[in-house]
């Protein structure tokens, strides 16, 4: 009956979202008076999960699972859910989890609610709140199946520490060869750079920056803040920045703690994509830019003057608060 949670790893270490989904699963388990079981695939050390309320870890070690594979991973989770008799399964909103979740939903005959932002409003009927219309609204969804699958929005629940001790158990689910008919040929990932998906702070530039040659200060500001860099749609359409940096309704969603928009006017599609961020700082020379209406903090001024000064101020601040 325990709540099952998929705690993702990268190179053997848990991702931060793993602790967030574990915290959420603990919240659900408390509501329905049960325990939390996590599934960890090729994790070096699973003991850390106890801190976020996990009672038991099913630890899967298998070289065939070194690369993410949506069908094979869904198969592992299905077998874990059946073994535990889980009625609620929780996954994150990472690219991998969103890839896998619909497969798992069919395998478990579970109703799936993605982009969930809070603990269930009620247990029976089982209702959850999720974002819809690309963050322009919320939608209360009732999951009507016996088994429920929840995809938790990033940064929506946060980390909740619990002083539990988790026990680890080796778990060796059967793998189906047919699941490996899609194979990874290569992975192209910039190492050592904060990704938009994992970043707590995102620094984003728009057309107001006039050209790709002016991105040095955006990168420097991101560097000082430990942030990921992003851009508006026109900037990626014009090829100033790679598509992977495009945030907005048709690009990547951003749910950071702080979103810094430089020279972005704030079109409705852009705002929709970044709306889930907690604090928004806008730097723009046009006081009429619609983004100021959606911002928490604003500086009306020339980005080419404001940003370099802000970098200096932040460096001073970091030096004093190190």
């Amino acid at each position: 009956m325990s709540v099952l949670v998929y705690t993702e790893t990268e190179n053997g270490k848990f991702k931060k979202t793993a602790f967030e989904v574990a915290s959420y699963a603990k919240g659900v388990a408390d509501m329905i008076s049960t325990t939390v079981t996590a599934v960890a695939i090729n994790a070096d050390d699973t003991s850390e999960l106890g801190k976020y309320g996990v009672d038991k870890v099913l630890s899967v070690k298998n070289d065939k699972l070194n690369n993410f594979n949506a069908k094979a991973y869904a198969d592992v989770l299905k077998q874990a859910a059946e073994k535990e008799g889980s009625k609620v399964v929780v996954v994150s909103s990472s690219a991998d989890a969103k890839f896998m979740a619909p497969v798992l939903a069919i395998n478990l005959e579970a109703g799936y609610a993605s982009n969930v932002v809070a603990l269930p409003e009620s247990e029976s009927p089982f209702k959850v709140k999720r974002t819809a219309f690309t963050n322009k609204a919320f939608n209360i969804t009732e999951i009507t199946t016996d088994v429920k699958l929840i995809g938790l929005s990033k940064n929506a629940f946060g980390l909740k520490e619990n002083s539990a001790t988790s026990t680890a158990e080796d778990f060796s689910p059967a793998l189906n060869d047919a699941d490996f008919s899609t194979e990874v040929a290569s992975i192209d990932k910039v190492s050592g750079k904060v990704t938009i998906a994992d970043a707590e702070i995102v620094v984003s530039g728009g057309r107001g920056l006039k050209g790709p040659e002016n991105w040095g200060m955006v990168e420097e500001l991101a560097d000082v803040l430990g942030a990921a860099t992003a851009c508006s749609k026109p900037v990626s359409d014009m090829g100033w920045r790679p598509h992977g940096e495009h945030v907005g309704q048709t690009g990547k969603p951003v749910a950071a703690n702080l979103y810094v928009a430089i020279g972005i006017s704030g079109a409705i599609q852009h705002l929709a994509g970044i709306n889930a961020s907690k604090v928004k700082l806008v730097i723009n020379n046009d006081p009429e830019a619609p983004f100021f209406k959606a911002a928490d903090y604003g500086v009306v001024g020339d980005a080419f003057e404001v940003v370099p000064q802000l970098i200096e101020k932040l460096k001073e601040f970091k030096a004093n608060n190190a």
Partner: protein
Amino acid sequence: MKILVCISHVPDTTSKINFTDGDTKFDTNGVQFVINPNDEFGLTRAMWFKEKQGATVTVVSVGEAETEPTLRKALAIGADEAIRINAKPTDGFFVAKQLAEIAKDYDLVIAGRESIDYNGGMVPGMLATLTNANYVNNCIGLEVEGENATAIREIDGGKETLKTTLPLVIGGQKGLVEESDLKIPNMRGIMMARKKTLNVVEPTDSANTTQAVKFEKPAPKGEVKLVSPDNLDELVNLLHNEAKVI
């Protein structure tokens, strides 16, 4: 190669989002509906396969009669024929079930990674699983040679190249083609679209697994706090002490 492109009929990205009937229904008043942007990138890639590799392209949508102009637009862009499954798309599972009935006759099924209205993000994966096809989500590049396909998917912080085979279902997005490759139907296309087949089929009986009960709009935003460009110390102070984000 037979390609099926799944089209969702969604409010234009600039739409104001409001609800009616005690916040239980989306208010379509004054809203312009379009091909879901993620699907349109896929449709445009399908057109490329049609032109370069002689593929045939069918578009399909689950929706009631008011969605037909959206399918006609897809025909005007160049799809060969359209199918409308005559039902309200009540949840992702229901839609995937309906599409699975049709999709089993195709080699390649292109859907968008998510619709921009409900953002469920589940139809491509469910459809692939129901039809036992290979599946790639967040697809930003796709080549097909005979039975073999190479798909690039966006991952957090980069991209991954996958080798797979047909039948294949992809969840597509921008990157499959460039924004500038999107086609605006010309007059000839629009005229031809009128003569193309648009088959209406009835849904197979199928249950839902979720139900949208109610909608809420986000709480109105407070006033922005403006800081003078000459006083950036204050900005750093606010971000640290008030917002607590640095």
